[in-house]
């Protein structure tokens, strides 16, 4: 993701690869070598890449769980309130509080809340909104290119060595970018 700082310039080293195995390998090595991986771009979800990049697992399941529970709780309360408390009406002689009958709707509402809220949360964490202008390294990223982006943070950063590393893993193309 392209976190840009308008104030100071940002130098990145970008390597383009063509194969799943290559990108996995190079990412691991770069990380072992202790360089800071800005991001990796891929046309599909390459398995194991998250471990290679050393990413934390997503915390979205938590959102899903909480909102699901919230939805269910709200619905149970609402159904009880409307049928047994706000205006109790004798329906077919059924008890005021017909809990079993409330289960189906409760379940549906739980799923609805959990599902929709998770997706919304996903949009928020990955800063998605309709019509957002995407930052594209290379249009082929959504087709058949894997891109590894390294940020030049400190003096230890050695472009030459990295270029070599990249080419060892059949990088099709390596370039340095300066943004301001």
């Amino acid at each position: 993701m392209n976190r840009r700082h308008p104030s100071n310039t940002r130098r990145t080293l970008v390597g383009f690869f063509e194969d799943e195995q290559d990108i996995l390998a190079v990412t691991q090595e770069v990380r072992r070598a202790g360089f800071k991986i800005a991001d990796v771009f891929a046309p599909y979800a390459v398995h194991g890449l998250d471990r290679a990049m050393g990413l934390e697992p997503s915390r979205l399941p938590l959102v899903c769980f909480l909102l699901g529970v919230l939805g269910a709780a709200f619905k149970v309360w609402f159904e009880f309130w409307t049928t047994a408390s706000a205006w109790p009406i004798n329906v077919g002689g059924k008890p005021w509080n017909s809990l079993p009958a409330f289960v189906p709707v409760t379940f549906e509402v739980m799923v609805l809340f959990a599902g929709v809220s998770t997706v919304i949360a996903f949009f928020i964490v990955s800063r998605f909104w309709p019509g957002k202008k995407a930052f594209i390294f290379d249009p082929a990223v959504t087709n058949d290119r894997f891109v590894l982006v390294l940020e030049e943070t400190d003096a230890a950063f050695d472009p030459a060595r990295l270029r070599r590393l990249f080419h060892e893993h059949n990088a099709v193309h390596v370039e340095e970018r300066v943004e301001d």
Partner: protein
Amino acid sequence: MATVYSVLRRPLIEGDKSLSRVTEDVCASMERKPSALWWGAFLAALTALLAGVAAVYHLLTTGIGTWGLNRTVGWAFDITNFVFWIGIGHAGTLISAILFLFRQSWRTSVNRSAEAMTIFAVMCAGIFPLIHMGRPWLAFWMFPYPNSRGSLWINFRSPLVWDFFAISTYFTISLVFWYMGLLPDLATIRDRARPGFRRSITSFFCLGWDGSYRTWLHYETVYKLLAGLATPLVVSVHTIVSWDFATSVIPGWHTTILPPYFVAGAIFSGMSMVLTLMLVVRKAMRLEQYITVDHVDKMCKLILVTSMMVGLAYLTEFFTAAYSGNRYERFAFINRALGPMGWSYWVMVVCNVLAPQMFWSKRLRGNLALVFAITVFVNIGMWFERFVIVVTSLHRDYLPSSWSSYAPTSIEIATLIGSFGLFFSCFLLFCRYIPVIAISEVKGVLSYGRSRPGGRS
């Protein structure tokens, strides 16, 4: 490049595709001009849709009396069609969610179109509960909103309310699920498209997808979560639909077996509808290498299994009726098979239980024309299953004095045709403007079944 094929697993995608090739193949159909075949099909579907619209117009302006219903048979085509379409709608989520959770990677070639089908089917289904109301303009009363009637709420004990919530939830979740799956592919199209309408529209809808792996990580998680939610949902929806009948007091409706029976039936009909469509799509859109004979074979097996489940349900119903010692129950089922509407029962049995038995033979499973025919049969049979349950149970219930018969009017038939028109128009548009195969997912399983020694050498 030298590729070694695994002896254990045949590749899911034939023809040794490269990543970009996949993109090409899938997007091709969207980028070339629509074929005459497509136009023909689309116009046909549109005509059917218009017929339905006309029928519904007459219905809304004149009254439910334009249907063949009567004091005894209060539901017939309307609810039959509703349950039928909802059933169809189940395959999509099943394939994309349940098979996903079961790590059935072969699903990737069909899940996109199956999900699309789900959405369109649920749309068709949703129409019927609405127009079957005597006063559809008051349908919003189904929703519990604060009102000036002191607030008068709704009856949460009514299966119809459950239905209302189930269907709307199911539709929303399916839509969201489908859209999620669509995001990366939209980005792909965006990046292929020349500047212009297509690019702007796709880049609007792909929400600025950039393929960053951090996004991919969240994306995968959400996809798993949705799959996890959709799986019980899909089961719950048809269970609730079945409760419309199971919670009633009408012999033939009031049976505890209905929920599993309905869910099995739904998967059954959905699968066969998917297969019907896929067989056409893979031919028409030259996707034989993505939707392979292997896929067809797997789905045929699923159909066979579900067909047996349904058949078992039919038998069990009769057993319970006979065993119950309840004279009304017993009569309901004898009447179902031998009564004035027995023919519909036998149509159902032949199409749903007997026809699919052919799938035992691998050779027949390979004969695509036959498979196509059988899947069509199954769809017909499943429509009649619902008809049998709804109508034959109602038309002769407790008091012989109010027994009656039922025959559809032209309006009802036109409405049914119209719903098919809607379904196919939507599906054809989908084939035209949206990748019918989940590009990114297929790419993910390209390597499946082949291993490459150390990349390019």
